[in-house]
């Protein structure tokens, strides 16, 4: 299934680029944007494919060997650059996921065990508010507080070549983790599922046995729901990363995407789109693997 989806992903990207004015494929396949006549000549001379399906396969083939073309802006090959900055985005997104979990899990589990209490209503409202709050503004707020009250100035540490302090990492991670709106979804889903599991008959048997309730409820009440909901939040976190990287001038894939969109740098944005989709699918795959491992009844696909 994942395989077909990845094919689908490449098709979607291909279609978008194909329909675009300006013939991005000449750029991708030939590396530059010559004039129409020259292009035609070169095409015939070099045997560059002209039909849409042969273009597709040529393009796919190039990608599979790692050739994502060269950036229009910098003239450098896309893939190495992407790998370099992609790492920063992975750190940002991964850290944000951790933050989200660190906040959401205790809240959800507490609510599940203690039931509806007086504080659950304000917390729900708070969750709504945070998910409606614009991420970029939250970023500036945190930045302002950090700069004014803590004297931290984390701008563009990479380009300055100075040693990046840990706190430079923490700020954008904190912002993305708290502000992406994932927290309220995680809390809601986890609380629902763990309450449900705690009422299940087999958990009652565990209690009657004098066994540790959580040891039995863990798989279905925690592991499965958490992986399920986090897998669906990966695309939102990546999207949020684009914004957070902008606010903090964080040298990552998001900022690269923004730059590429500004410059119409097709190879770069295309590569990023594929990379992002790949990350999302990896997230889903991890969740499926966990599910299958835990569940004795599921069969491998």
């Amino acid at each position, binding site marked *: 299934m994942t395989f077909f989806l990845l094919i689908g992903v490449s098709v979607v990207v291909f279609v978008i680029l194909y329909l675009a004015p300006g013939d991005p494929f000449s750029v991708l396949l030939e590396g530059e944007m010559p004039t129409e006549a020259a292009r035609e000549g070169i095409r015939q001379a070099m045997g560059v494919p002209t039909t849409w399906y042969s273009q597709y396969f040529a393009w796919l083939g190039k990608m599979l060997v790692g050739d994502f073309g060269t950036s229009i802006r910098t003239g450098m090959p896309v893939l190495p650059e992407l790998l370099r900055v992609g790492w920063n985005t992975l750190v940002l997104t991964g850290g944000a996921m951790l933050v989200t979990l660190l906040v959401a899990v205790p809240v959800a589990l507490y609510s599940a065990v203690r039931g509806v209490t007086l504080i659950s209503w304000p917390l729900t409202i708070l969750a709504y508010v945070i998910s409606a709050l614009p991420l970029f503004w939250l970023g500036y707020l945190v930045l302002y507080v950090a700069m004014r009250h803590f004297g931290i100035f984390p701008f563009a540490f990479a380009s300055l070549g100075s040693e990046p302090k840990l706190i430079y990492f923490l700020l954008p991670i904190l912002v993305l983790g708290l502000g992406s709106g994932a927290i309220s979804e995680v809390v809601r889903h986890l609380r629902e599922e763990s309450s449900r599991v705690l009422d299940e008959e*087999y958990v009652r048997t565990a209690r009657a046995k004098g066994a540790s309730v959580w040891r039995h409820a863990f798989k279905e009440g925690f592991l499965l729901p958490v992986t399920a909901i986090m897998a669906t939040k990966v695309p939102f976190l990546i999207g949020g990363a684009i914004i957070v990287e902008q606010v903090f001038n964080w040298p990552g894939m998001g900022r690269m995407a923004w730059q590429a969109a500004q410059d119409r740098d097709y190879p770069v944005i295309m590569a990023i789109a594929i990379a992002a989709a790949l990350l999302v699918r990896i997230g889903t795959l991890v969740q499926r693997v966990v599910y299958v491992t835990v569940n004795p009844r599921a069969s491998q696909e």
Partner: protein
Amino acid sequence: MSASLLKIDNLRTYFYSRSKRAFIRSVDGVSLAINRGETLGIVGESGCGKSVTALSVMGLITATPGVITGRIDFANGTLHRNLLDGLDQSVRLSEEEGRIMDVVKDSGAWQRQSDRLQRGVRGGEIAMIFQNPKASMNPFEPVGAQIVEAVRLHTEHTGKKEAEQRALHWLERVRIDSPRLRFHNHPYGLSGGMCQRAMIAMALAAEPSLLIADEPTTGLDATIQSKIVDLLAELKAEIGITTLLISHDMGVIGRLADRVAVMYGGRVVEEGGAQQVLAGGEGNHPYTRALIASIPGAAEVRQKSYLQAIEGDVLDTINIPAGCRFYERCNRVTEAVRERCADCEPQLFDAGSGQRVRCWLFAP
């Protein structure tokens, strides 16, 4: 007194309906005693409070307000404990017209105290098996591992290999087919009957003093039901384990119980030796009589005669009437007792040779 393994005294377990703003008086003053070595059967229709009684003994009631009064003495010779000790500290009651109308309970403190009291008892000294065995076992773990857990928690066989041996031994003892194979199966791969055998194995592997069986055969196919009953009878003969058996199936009770308690509307209405209670005649509570009479005998089934149903609906444990709880449905009321039946709830009267009946007809 000292022969009682478990003595329940004036247990009350209430639930609260938010929408109706009223108490559901599931167990409304139940007192029972189980002697060592005997099987006590609790019988009654759905909703009479039998399962809730058992869950209250195990401290498994989590709904609110839950258990609010009572004393549950467990004494197996080495251990002597009131499982509801210190309960009064966390509960305040107020009554109106003899009925509890107001409950203030610190559920957190109460639960903590209950868990403290249950430690060492729940699972190890008192083990419970449930209805619906497939749903009652952890679907993510192999059956054998779940039994091993019970062994390691509650017996001296804490080594892994040792415990596995014991678990296997118990699987064999419950006469499950291909025990070695079943040991590694997950519950979904077992039939209902096999799962119930495994559950029994899991409960007994902990070597408890008391086994509580809550509707162990309900939900299984008819033929399997009798096999499980046979198994329980065999185990009873082999091990002599004290059992609290709950069922609405008179046949199961008849087969396995030494003494029987009949429950209705959250109270015990009759108790005594199995033979006496299940006679279903003049010497029994009208409800017991009606229950026994409603079981179609073979002859009746063949002749396709009308089933003898009990008039009326099961008592709604929210709206409890003033007098005898069974009065509305009783077909044995005589003029002599009618007034008392309507106004005053009877207590348990002695009916001779250990039998007691909660009915004005038996008043001295």
